[in-house]
């Protein structure tokens, strides 16, 4: 760390002052940051344990615990109904984790670093959202393996399977912006997680995931008809089991576009305003912090 070694490289500026960020740069920054998230998952795969265990438990529970009652005694028929539905529910649940992890990031200085760099403002959030594809893939792979073991059989071709995967991942990516927004707004990982869990309950349970809409009460059926979870489940069922796809698919795409249109700008606005605001806000309330203590300690000999 001598003066000689540090001198040469630091002095010369390399950046050309362009003054703006292009769309191509936004994409490349987002991908670089998605790579950061991806690396983090690879380093501690324990972060994937929730997206692997939750769907296993859900599927086992619904098929063997409730399947008898709900499927009218026919477990095989019920598996066919519930597997695509549980896929939707599972990626949805996996998508809400992002708000909590971004809120945790926000409590460090990492976003300050990104915001002070000449990179696209949206890149850290888009990157984080994209990195979660790892979670969705892990979740879906687990479900497919378990479903096959339990006797589920695909009724369609691989192209349709890929289409279903794309729709499921797209749905999770779009809806994760709700969680991102809450994470940026609330900045408390535990609260974000709790709130999101409550929020997705009516969406997942008041849907056609576990029962046919024809068996629902009228008002519930009306809600389930427009519920995005039902619509995605309907399309995925069509793509995996065979059957109509269009209605569910278009409905899902409209929902996804609407959620992104609303929550992406909201999340970006909250992100711009976020950031640790240190002692400056309430100077007196932080007198026991170590920073304040260091000042006292320094001034102590004089008093």
């Amino acid at each position, binding site marked *: 760390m001598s003066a000689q070694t540090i001198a040469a490289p630091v002095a010369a500026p390399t950046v050309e002052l362009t003054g703006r960020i292009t769309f191509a740069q936004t994409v490349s920054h987002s991908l670089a940051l998605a790579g950061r998230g991806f*690396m983090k998952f690879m380093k501690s795969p324990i972060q994937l344990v929730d997206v692997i265990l939750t769907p296993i438990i859900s599927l086992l529970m619904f098929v063997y615990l409730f399947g008898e009652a709900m499927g009218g005694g026919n477990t095989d028929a019920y598996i066919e109904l519930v597997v695509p539905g549980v896929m939707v529910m599972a990626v949805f649940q996996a998508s809400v984790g992002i708000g909590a992890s971004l809120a945790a990031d926000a409590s*460090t200085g990492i976003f300050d670093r990104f915001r*002070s760099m000449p990179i696209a403002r949206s890149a850290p959030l888009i990157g984080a959202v994209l990195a979660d594809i790892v979670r969705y893939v892990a979740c879906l792979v687990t479900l497919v393996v378990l479903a096959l073991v339990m006797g589920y059989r695909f009724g369609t071709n691989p192209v349709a399977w890929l289409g279903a995967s794309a729709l499921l991942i797209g749905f999770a990516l779009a809806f994760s912006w709700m969680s991102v927004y809450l994470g940026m707004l609330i900045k408390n990982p535990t609260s974000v997680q709790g709130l999101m869990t409550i929020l997705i309950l009516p969406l997942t349970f008041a849907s056609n995931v576990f029962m046919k809409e024809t068996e629902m009460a009228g008002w519930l059926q009306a809600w389930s008809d427009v519920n995005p979870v039902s619509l995605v489940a309907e399309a995925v069922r069509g793509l995996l089991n065979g059957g109509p796809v269009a209605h569910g698919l278009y409905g899902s795409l409209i929902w996804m576009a609407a959620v992104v249109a609303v929550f992406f700008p909201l999340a970006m606005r909250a992100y711009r305003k976020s950031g640790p605001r240190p002692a400056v806000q309430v100077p007196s309330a932080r007198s026991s912090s170590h920073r304040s203590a260091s000042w006292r300690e320094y*001034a102590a000999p004089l008093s």
Partner: protein
Amino acid sequence: MSYAIRAEGLVKKYGDFTALDGVDLEVPAGKVVGVLGPNGAGKTTTVRILATLMRPDAGHATIGGHDIVKDAVKVRQLIGLTGQFASVDETLTGTENLVLIGRLLGLSRRDAKGRAVQLLEQFSLTDAARKPIATFSGGMRRRLDLAASLVGRPRVLFLDEPTTGLDPHARQEVWEVVRNLVADGSTVLLTTQYLEEADQLADSITVFDKGRKVAEGRPGELKRRVGGQVLQVRPTVATDVPLVSQMLAELSGHSPAEDSGVLTVPVDDPLLVAAVARRLDGAGITADELGLRLPSLDEVFLALTGHTPTVKDTEPAAA
């Protein structure tokens, strides 16, 4: 003279609380300015505004001639920031963190890697290059944080309390890094609560208090502005302290301050030292320490902001 940083009338409010109340700041290119002040003085708010993390409610500022609000992207291409909070990724290694920053700044994978290796070497972090940050010591983290803010070779560097929370050894390491940067021509704005730090590193010091600039100047100027020399006496035998305190009070006409066996009293008359020496001698009291000194920056700060009693006003604690 060209200014790397120039701010005029910066105001920032959080609800009713005024964090910045019209701050002006001018930092010539290639200089280090130390912004000094207690918690809540507005130091961090100033840095956050200048580093384009937040907008001022009033006033304007330029970095290298570029407006921090209108030309924020250009400003970001010129600056580096090391904040109070760790801005590196705990789970990634030193190299991975620096490569990511390099990639974001548009370096090729190969160049980003090269730059990371170079910086890790300069910051004596080569051994830790492959270890996750979570295993780093506080000083190593802060050095990596500094390295991360240097990947883009910034012309203006903001260091917000770079040594807060570090042990003295780690603090020295960070100081060394800052000194090398300065030797190199970078402009540095450094905030600190440690007067010693500002004294050690800064060409000039700006003192903030309650969102306002209360003083600025070279460390020596500030010391002189607060004025008066003080006489310090440390009696060899601690039980002599009350007696010596009484003598000093009689001779100087001021109540001495006492801390850990050292008595301090303002000096109005240069002959006081000789008079004190004679009295001590006559009473058969020996002193380990007897001398004049300029006020420390601690005292300067306290005198300028008036938060806590200055030496002159302090009643002797053990008299």
